[in-house]
């Protein structure tokens, strides 16, 4: 068996190298096909990874709140494209008393990469006669940085949140003409205005946050809002971004009475758009693969006819039917292997050239996933071998008597 495969492989190689022109053409076909599939995958994966990163990279993937059973409300003026970070989509929350026990449990979940308890409140910032309604966000900087990268986003002043100072967004700063060290009045409903120092100005890259957020330390927020030791929500990031909805589901089961929302739920239309995009890419790839398969099949069918006399004599000499089948399947396999390798190289090269040429305006980077390439190569190989199956069966049934009789 093993030893006869050795001869079958030799025969397959000789058959392929004999028809050099035919073999070169079909190899070129497979190479181009695989290259297109690899390039298209890199393009779509890169685009989607970029889009997802921009949407949820610097925002929580899961938010836990204690909420009355109300539907999520999109912020005023937002469109319905769903391209909105989760933190903009909240309404009034009930405080979470046992938040410390919860966050401790969450930090033990190895699938979560960041846990951030936040105390939210509504406030008004006033400077002179101008006043702005803002979202007062009480959070510990060390806990917030893994999600929001606030320390890295400070464009003026210092990220330190000392007593009596707060961090404001760049939009709010320009609207109120504030600089670090300036003093503003902070009004919390039902309480007397207090004077605060602008410690730092951040740019989180999202206009709404830069306009609405005022960040202070959580314990100070608690005392300002009269909330004692409570938070209004717990925000989380996960290691595998697409596992967020499953994780949210799991935590929702563990936490009855809480609402656990993943980024997928609040970005359903983005995900459906990405899915449609993937589907159209799969459709193109399917037809490329089909064309490759048909090409291999037709080339081998022609080769089978050309070789029928030689197969006839080999059968007279004693080669088994299954052996002849394998000779042609091996030809398919060899074509598939060489074509896939060539195609992967060409596709990667095309992707590199694309990156090089597009680097001037860095829209997004191509993403060449080894797993995707492996799947493309495996599918191409499988298709090429399957494509060889019909010609293989046909030629393997050659009756040596027919060949001998007709010369």
């Amino acid at each position: 068996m093993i030893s006869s495969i050795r001869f079958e492989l030799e025969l397959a190689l000789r058959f392929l190298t004999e028809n050099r022109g035919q073999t070169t053409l079909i190899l070129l076909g497979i190479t181009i096909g695989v290259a297109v599939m690899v390039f298209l995958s890199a393009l779509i994966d890169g685009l989607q990874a970029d889009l997802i990163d921009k949407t949820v990279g610097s925002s929580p993937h899961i938010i836990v709140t204690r909420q009355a059973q109300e539907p999520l409300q999109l912020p005023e003026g937002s469109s319905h494209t769903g391209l909105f970070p989760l933190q903009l989509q909240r309404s009034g929350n009930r405080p979470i008393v046992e938040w410390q026990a919860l966050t401790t449990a969450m930090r033990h979940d190895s699938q979560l990469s960041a846990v951030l308890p936040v105390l939210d409140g509504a406030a008004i910032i006033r400077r002179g006669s101008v006043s702005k309604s803002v979202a007062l966000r009480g959070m510990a900087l060390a806990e917030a940085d893994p999600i929001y990268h606030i320390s890295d986003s400070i464009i003026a002043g210092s990220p330190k949140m000392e007593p009596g100072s707060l961090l404001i967004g760049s939009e709010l700063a320009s609207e109120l003409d504030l600089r670090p060290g300036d003093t503003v009045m902070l009004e919390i409903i039902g309480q007397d205005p207090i004077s605060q120092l602008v410690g730092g100005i951040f740019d989180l890259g999202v206009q709404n946050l830069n306009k609405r957020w005022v960040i202070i330390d959580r314990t100070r927020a608690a005392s300002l809002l009269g909330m004692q030791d409570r938070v209004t929500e717990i925000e989380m990031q996960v290691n595998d971004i697409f596992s967020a909805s499953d994780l949210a589901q799991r935590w929702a089961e563990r936490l009855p009475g809480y609402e656990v929302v993943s980024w997928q739920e609040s970005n359903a239309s983005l995900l459906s758009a990405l899915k449609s995009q993937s589907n159209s890419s799969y459709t193109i790839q399917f037809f490329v693969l089909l064309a490759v398969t048909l090409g291999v099949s037709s080339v081998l069918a022609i080769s089978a006819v050309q070789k029928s006399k030689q197969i006839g004599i080999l059968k007279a000499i004693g080669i088994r039917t299954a052996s002849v089948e394998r000779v042609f399947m091996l030809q398919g396999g060899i074509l598939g292997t060489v074509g896939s390798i060539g195609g992967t190289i060409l596709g990667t090269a095309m992707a590199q050239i694309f990156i090089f040429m597009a680097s001037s305006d860095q829209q997004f980077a191509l993403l060449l996933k080894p797993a995707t390439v492996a799947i493309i190569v495996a599918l191409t190989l499988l298709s090429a071998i399957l494509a060889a199956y019909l010609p293989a069966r046909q030629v393997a049934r050659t009756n040596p008597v027919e060949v001998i009789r007709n010369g």
Partner: protein
Amino acid sequence: MADTLLKAKAIIKEFGAPVPTRVLHGIDLSIECGEFCALIGNSGSGKSTLLNIIGALDRPSGGQVFIEGIDLAGLTDDELAFFRNQTMGFIFQFHFLLPQFTVLENVLIPHLIYRGKADKSARDRAMYLLEQVGLLHRRDYKANSISGGEQQRAAIARALMNQPRLILADEPTGNLDSKNSAHIFNLMRKINQENQTTFLIVTHDRNMAFSADRIIELKDGLIVRDECVCGQDPNQMLAVIEPLY
């Protein structure tokens, strides 16, 4: 007395459906080890059909074939393939060498089919056979780059590779000129005499037929003559057979 190599009992062969045409009408034939037999007959007499059945390339519609006591009907297709490989050598009118391989590799193919690789003893045998057929100097040529006569000689060497007990030849010289024909015939005769290899040769060539040990003549699917020619005067035999052709 020599052992019986081949025994065919009441071989019937029909072709076609739904109305079958009977090509062989019950052939009984026995061939001893070392015999050199010529199978003659008009075209359509069924001689190639009989050769294919004896050669285990085709199965009879009725009757039995025993080779070295083995009933071929009891073997599966794969077993038959292996049996052919080990027991029989084929020489056809067309040489059917594989053009992708060299002359030496072509001779080795019956060995390679089941062994995958040629060891030294296999290579030595192939070289010996090439020397026997006078093609040693052509061993590294591609099979399609040598002359027709040389190709047929290479095909003979190939048929002998696995030391078969029975060589079946279907018009082995049908495609060659008289000089090459004589060369091929003498070669087969020599192999027969030196190794006691049994030959069954389908031929239209009268001279070749009369140089055999035994002439078996087929007509309309039946054996009409089966006689030993050794020691007889070819001219006398010629007179007997002549009217038929």
